[in-house]
């Protein structure tokens, strides 16, 4: 459904997206996971045709977004990160307008608007204007406007930012409903849990580059069964490295004067040994965090920085 090859986007001398490639299949939720500024939104803007790529190819349903924008865009639905609805038009008129913008007309448009109002749970508020809606209701309408034409490909750019847990759950259900009818969903998020829970395949991005890609299981396998232990305090590099060289099964992921991150099997069981060794170097430890293997620990392992940083 979507084929992205060697996508690159530069703004002056700054490279926002650097050589990204991925493909998506029908009925699949493909997650783009990464911290703020990783290049997720720029990628989705290039895929949606909102900005022109500096290099590479984006094909949607076999149509190049640059050379055949009309054909490619007709298969797309987008739910932008920021709300993009008419606050001064009722919910039903918003859906009618966006349905018409995506080429629906007549009875098809009317019936789809009715269906979407039910899906997003705004039947009772159909005649009300979004300016009187709660944040969650606006998000749902924003989503509804992107699916009113039943697109083959749905692009969701951090759709749950600022959404309460209940509305988030509802949005996730709506996304799953879209894949159930065969749509491909490209989903960007910086919430590891959201990606783990929702996505069939995930690409992890950092500083404009794709640093890992696969199913959740495949990505977890990259971390192995190793736990990640992060210690905050004051550390001298040389004595710490010497002390750890004598500890079997422990490897340093990153070492900075204020923070030390190590990888080891059975983190909770090895913690006491680790602390003895570190404190023996004269280091000071103020905080200790043990993480089970997950996407966040994979990101940490791959980049040496926190996903939420």
């Amino acid at each position: 459904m979507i084929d992205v090859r060697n996508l690159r986007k530069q703004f002056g001398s700054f490279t926002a997206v650097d050589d990204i490639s991925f493909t998506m299949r029908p009925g699949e939720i493909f997650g783009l996971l990464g911290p703020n500024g990783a290049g997720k939104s720029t990628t989705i803007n290039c895929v949606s045709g909102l900005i022109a790529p500096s290099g590479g190819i984006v094909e949607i349903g076999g149509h190049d977004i640059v050379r055949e924008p009309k054909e490619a865009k007709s298969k797309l639905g987008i739910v932008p990160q920021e709300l993009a609805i008419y606050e001064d038009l009722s919910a039903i008129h918003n859906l009618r307008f966006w349905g018409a913008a995506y080429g629906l007309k007549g009875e098809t448009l009317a019936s789809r608007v009715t269906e979407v109002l039910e899906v997003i749970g705004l039947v009772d508020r159909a005649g009300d204007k979004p300016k009187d809606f709660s944040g969650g209701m606006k998000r749902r309408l924003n989503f509804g406007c992107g699916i009113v034409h039943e697109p083959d490909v749905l692009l969701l750019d951090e759709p749950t930012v600022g959404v309460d847990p209940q509305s988030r759950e509802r949005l996730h259900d709506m996304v799953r409903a879209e894949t159930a009818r065969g749509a491909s969903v490209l989903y960007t998020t910086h919430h590891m849990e959201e990606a783990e829970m929702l996505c069939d395949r995930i690409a992890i991005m950092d500083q404009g580059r794709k640093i890992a890609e696969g199913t959740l299981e495949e990505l977890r396998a990259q971390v192995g069964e190793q736990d990640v232990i992060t210690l905050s305090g004051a550390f001298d590099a040389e004595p710490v490295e010497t002390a750890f060289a004598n500890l079997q099964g422990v490897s340093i992921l990153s070492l900075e004067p204020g923070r030390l991150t190590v990888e080891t099997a059975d983190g909770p069981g090895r913690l006491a040994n680790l602390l003895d060794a570190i404190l023996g170097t004269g280091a000071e430890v103020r905080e200790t965090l043990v993480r089970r293997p997950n996407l966040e620990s994979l990101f940490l392992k791959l980049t040496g920085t926190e996903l939420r940083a």
Partner: protein
Amino acid sequence: MTFFLASLSKQLRRVLGQPWSLAIWIGVPMLVGALLSAVMGGEDGETPKVHLLLADEDGSFLSGALIETLSSEDFGQLLIIERVAGDEGMAKLDADEASALLVVPEGFQSAFLASEAQALTLVTNPLQSILPAMAEELARTLAEFGSYAQLAFGPELRRIGEVSDAIRDETMTSDEIAQAIGALAEGGTGKLMRAVPKLSGAPVEIDVRTTEGALEASFILLFFPGLLMMSVIFAAQGLAEDLWAERDMGTLRRLKTTAASSAAGFAARIAGMALATAAVVLPLTTIGFTLLELPYAKLPMTIVWLALAGLLLAALASVIQVLAPSRKAGALFSMLVFFPLMLVGGSFFPFESMPDFLTVFGRLTPNGMMLEPLKRFLIGTGDLAGFVPALSIALIATAVLTAFTIWRVETRFAAR
């Protein structure tokens, strides 16, 4: 077509959802019109007259004749004459109770009849501007007339003065008076007598008339089309600013990700602007037509023309908005452009009350260009053909400006 109609419907619903904007677009010109109409006397108000104080310090036959002439019915529509003593006149001027004081000095008649230099003194009211100027013009005309009379009939006028003085002083007998009048009639005065019939039946006549079917153009009638244009300008600015509202809501950006045609979207926007402008000016125009007793047959053309003017002005305002770096800057730039355009383009003052150089410039402004044929059409001095030149320019300018706006929205404005 569906997207065009959906966009048009969206546009109109959003305009109708702004009752306060609509109220301002309609209400402000109404308020300005009502205030200026009240200040200028309105359609049925009395024409302003020169309140001229006359101080006759000569008390002669000639000064009396001058005052009688000014008090005649011929000047009644222009002047309110009040005879005063000199000091009393000055006090009234100081109290802003009159436009000017004309003093006929002592010895006026003697000097006039002796062909000596003599002067009428005109004191104008500094607190007024137009009416004292009119009094000054009138006094100059009188002085010129007096000078020509003196040159043509000097000896005869001198003799008439002597006879009238003798009659007053009873220094001549009846026979001598009759003899003197006879001599005047038979002698040199013959030329006066011969001139009088020629003057009364002068071969050159001034036939004052207006264009057939034209209305007498009162101030408010001249001002009315400018008021309508003011409403159009307000609406055009408001409708153009909506581009920023759409941008801030993210809808312009989202629209770019759809397969919908930008041209269809902007065509709907243009149609929506025309319909919205027509809806805005309809009440104002209808009220104006009723109050000014204009023929309702001209109402549809007036509305159509104003809607077209709205397109041109909205296209200009849209260019300003899409070039502005922020919404605030857009509103400021728009005001900086349109406020002077309103001032010189005939919306605050009719061209007829503006200096010539400013009128020439004002008629070249977009609003002034659209205003002139409408004004002539309403007053009755112009026909439908008079709209054609401005129509051609307006259509071309609107197309060019709109094409630029679309390009700017597509490439920069929506993507920011």
